[in-house]
Each structure stands twice: as structure tokens, then as C-alpha cells.
């Protein structure tokens, strides 16, 4: 060991090779490296075990590219008119809107009981666990499950989307409410206000903007979900047209037109919700 300059070297850590260490493997670094390693190994294993069914990857990729070219460069409507297309888009937006707005109203009420600063802890925790359970089920499964009772169609789609929306919004709303300054609630309570007074005079006014932003964010998600429900669960709207154009008519030009339409709405919604989010949801 080199101890000539002992005053400089006594607290320098060395590797087994005798070289000076400069990193420090704390828990956070170990967990990060571990996570990345595990994900990489799992991905490699996944690639090795997928059921590829003897697909010709190059041919399929080329075909897809040709399709994409046709879609985006020669987008056109063939099997229905522009007016109909607008109507179908309206239908999809309508599905998303209803699921969002009804969901938001229900969520607001439930969130008041799920926020730990307004509600007893056992109750809040029960709701949060229950909500996590609902959220874990994919929306499409909820739609299918409702469809058994209500039949496939807009009712089942809206109810299924509604359930998922409530599960998402209750969590988001409750967290916004919990961020509220504890002093405000305390001051009102001290002045003799009851629970409902606290809610209507302090909680709702001061969290309103962030609740609205979350709701809009969910509207954006629900639009995509509504497209999916149209394609997969027979909920109608532009998603169903997309499914027909690609799966039945094999009409790539029409698929292109529909994709453009969906893209346009989605980009608009995203733009609005990003602006709302920037203004009202403060990232911690």
C-alpha cells in the first residue's frame, strides 16, 4: 500500500485492484441498476420466446410501409361521406365527453371521502384500495362485462369508460385535495364551520382549477379509449369505421383519412390539456 502521503490517502477508498474508487454504490444506485438489468434480461427473454408463427419480417415491414404510404399520401373517403365521417367523430367525442363529465361529478363526491385530510383514514384507505382494483382492469374488459348486462353499444361503452374514469379521477382529485394547505381547513374548522362548509367554502374553490385540468386530461385519454371501444367493443363511432375500413374493406386510403381525423382531434385535445396542465397542475 502506498502510504507515503498518508495525510492525503487515509480516507481514500480503493477497489480490490488498488485503484481509487470514485463512485458510491448507495441503495438508490443499486436499485436503478438492478431495475434496468432485470428489464433488459426480461426483454431479451421475451424476444426469444415470442410465438412468431414463421412470419417474414422483412416482407411484412415492407408491406406495412407501403400501406402507410398509401394511407398518409392518398387519404380519401370511399365507403361513406364527409358528413358521415364528421358525425362518427362527433359520436366518439360524445362518448368520451359523457364518460368524462359524469365520471367527474361522481369522482368529486367520492374523492371528498378518499382524501385523508377530509375523511377518516380507514374510509379513505378502503376507497383508495377499491379504486386501485377497478383501475387495474383494462377499460375494454369493463366494457365487455357491462355489455353482458346492457348489450353491446354506447351504454356499455359509456359505463365501462365511466368506471375507469372514476377510478382514475378519484385518485387524482383526492391527491389534489390532500395538497390543500392544512391551515385553511383548520382555520375554518376553528371558526365553527361544519364539514360541508369546509368543502364548499375552502376545498372546492381552491382546488377547482386543478380538478378541471385533471378532468380535461382524462377527456383526452377517454377520446383514445372511445376510439378503441368503437373498434374492439362495437361502441360505434370513428373507431368502428376504422375497424371496418381496415378489417373488411381493406381500404388503406380510407384508413388514412380516418387516422388523420383522429390525429387531428387528438392533437387539438392534447394542445389544450397541455396548456391547462402548465397553468394549473403544479408538478411536485
Amino acid at each position, binding site marked *: 500500500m502506498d502510504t507515503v502521503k498518508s495525510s492525503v490517502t487515509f480516507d481514500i477508498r480503493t477497489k480490490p485492484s488498488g485503484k481509487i474508487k470514485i463512485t458510491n454504490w448507495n441503495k*438508490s444506485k443499486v*436499485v*436503478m441498476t438492478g*431495475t*434496468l438489468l432485470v*428489464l*433488459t434480461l*426480461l*426483454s431479451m*427473454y*421475451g*424476444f426469444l420466446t*415470442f*410465438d*412468431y*408463427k414463421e*412470419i417474414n*419480417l422483412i416482407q*411484412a415491414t415492407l*408491406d*406495412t410501409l407501403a*400501406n402507410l404510404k398509401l*394511407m398518409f399520401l392518398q387519404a380519401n373517403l370511399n365507403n361513406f361521406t364527409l358528413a358521415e365521417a364528421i358525425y362518427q367523430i*362527433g*359520436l366518439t367525442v*360524445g*362518448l368520451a*365527453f*359523457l364518460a368524462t363529465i359524469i365520471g367527474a361529478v361522481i369522482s368529486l363526491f367520492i374523492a371528498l371521502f378518499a382524501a385523508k385530510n377530509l375523511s377518516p383514514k380507514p374510509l379513505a384507505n378502503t376507497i383508495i384500495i377499491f379504486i*386501485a382494483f377497478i383501475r*387495474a382492469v*383494462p*377499460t*375494454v*374488459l369493463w366494457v*365487455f*362485462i*357491462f355489455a*353482458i*348486462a*346492457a348489450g353491446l*353499444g*354506447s*351504454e356499455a361503452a*359509456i*359505463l365501462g369508460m365511466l368506471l375507469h374514469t372514476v377510478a382514475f379521477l378519484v385518485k387524482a382529485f383526492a391527491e389534489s385535495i390532500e395538497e390543500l394547505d392544512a391551515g385553511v381547513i383548520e382555520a375554518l374548522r376553528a371558526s365553527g364551520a361544519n364539514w360541508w362548509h369546509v368543502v364548499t367554502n375552502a376545498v372546492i374553490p381552491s382546488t377547482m382549477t386543478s380538478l378541471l385540468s385533471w378532468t380535461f386530461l382524462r377527456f383526452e385519454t377517454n377520446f*383514445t379509449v372511445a*376510439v*378503441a371501444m368503437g*373498434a*374492439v367493443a362495437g361502441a360505434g363511432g370513428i*373507431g368502428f369505421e*376504422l*375497424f371496418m375500413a*381496415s*378489417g373488411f374493406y*381493406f381500404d388503406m386510403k380510407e384508413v388514412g383519412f380516418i387516422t388523420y381525423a383522429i*390525429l387531428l382531434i387528438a*392533437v387539438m385535445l*392534447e394542445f389544450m390539456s397541455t396548456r391547462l396542465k402548465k397553468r394549473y397542475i403544479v408538478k411536485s
Partner: protein
Amino acid sequence: MKIDVYRKKKRQFTIFALIVLCMTFISAKLTNFSFVQGISSVPEAFRWMGSNLLITRESFEKMPSILDKLIETIFLSITATTTASIIALLLALLGSQTTKVNGFFSTLSRFIASVFRNIPIVAWALILLLSFGQNALTGYFALFLATLGFLTRVFTETIDETSNSSVEALQSTGANYYQVVSKAVLPECSPQMISWILFMVETNIRSSTLVGILTGTGIGFAFDLYYKSMNYNVVSLITLSIVVVVISIELISNYIRRVIL
């Protein structure tokens, strides 16, 4: 003066509420949704679920095959997420204001991200289905493209928000682009990025169920199969197994986030 502001706020709110009401009404008309019928069918649906969505002993016999499909879905979502995250990182480095190479690539990266994330995953699945057929790769690419769009956006935001100052410091020491990226940007951003990757794995399990219904792969296919043959006991077993997987992944992710963030 103050009363005016108050009044203005109140009027704004009334107008806002009226617009929302109007839109609700139009939406209900458009979608043929009846509130009464809709809401009244909820208890009925739950009653039906209570009596029919039971997991019986027979349905457990399907467990091995369900597990098989479930594992396929989990691997699909992990594989799509990790591969997408690598490309997303490259795009985000090009797209971020802090690490961009030039304005053209930055705009291009943001454009690609926007297109990929705003075309719904079902659309990708349907398009890919035409040439890839009912195949694990169809699902993989659909998830990959949608994930790429989302992760590029959040990675770009992460780089913009967290690494500005240390990038400047390293540049001023004479470090070159690759050194700045590997020694300042990645160490600063990786916890946030890993957190987003975990979020995406979780989301993709749900998305791949949806995609699986279309592409005939994974747990989505199993669900569709038993749903269509009206074997609701197995349907509920499948649903429950998805819930277990999603919640487990959520719990693991939450633990990891607590440690690294």
C-alpha cells in the same frame, strides 16, 4: 370593485356550466345515451356480476393456459417498453432544448413523438394487422410505436427540466457532447426516466390486453375466447389474474420509485 370581480367570476362560471350542460345534452343525443336507462342498468350489471362472475373450481383447470397467455402479455409489454425507451432516449436527446444538435432534428423529433402518441394504439394495431397478421409481433409493434411517442415526450420534458445547469457546467470544462450526455444528462435524468418506464410497463399490460383481442395473442385473446363462448367463470378468473398482475407491478414500481427518486 371587488364585488365586480366576484360577479364576473360567478357569471363566467355560469356560462361555463351552461356550455358543459349543453354539450352533455348534445353528446347524449348523439350517442343515444339515456341517463335513466344507463344509471338503472348499473345495479343490474353489478347484480349480474355478483351472481355470474364467480370463479369456480372448474375454471381453475384453465389456470395453466391462462398463466401462459398472461406471461406472454407481460413479456410483450416489457419488451415493447424497454426497446421503445432506448429509441425514445435518442429522440429525446435530439428533441430537448438542452441537448439538441440543431433546430431541424429537434422539430423532427417533437413531430415524430406527437404523431406516434396521438395515433391511438388500436389504429396502429389495425394497420399492422394487415401485413403482420395475427402474430405477437403485431402487438409488439403497436405497443412499441405508441410507447415511443409517449416516452419521447416525457423524456424530452425530463431533460429540459432537470439537466440544464449541469450541462452548462460540463460544457464549460471543455467536455464534448457525448461526455456531457453520459456524465450530466443521464445521471440527472435516469431516476425520472426509469419511473416513466415503469409507468409505461404498467400501462402497456392493460393496452396489450386490448391489442391482444385484435391480434389474437396473449391474455386479450384468452379473454375474448372465453367471453365469446360465454364461459363467464373463466372470464372472471382472467380478469382477476390481470388485476393481480397490474397491482403487483404497481406495488413494485412504487417501491422502486420511493428508493430512487
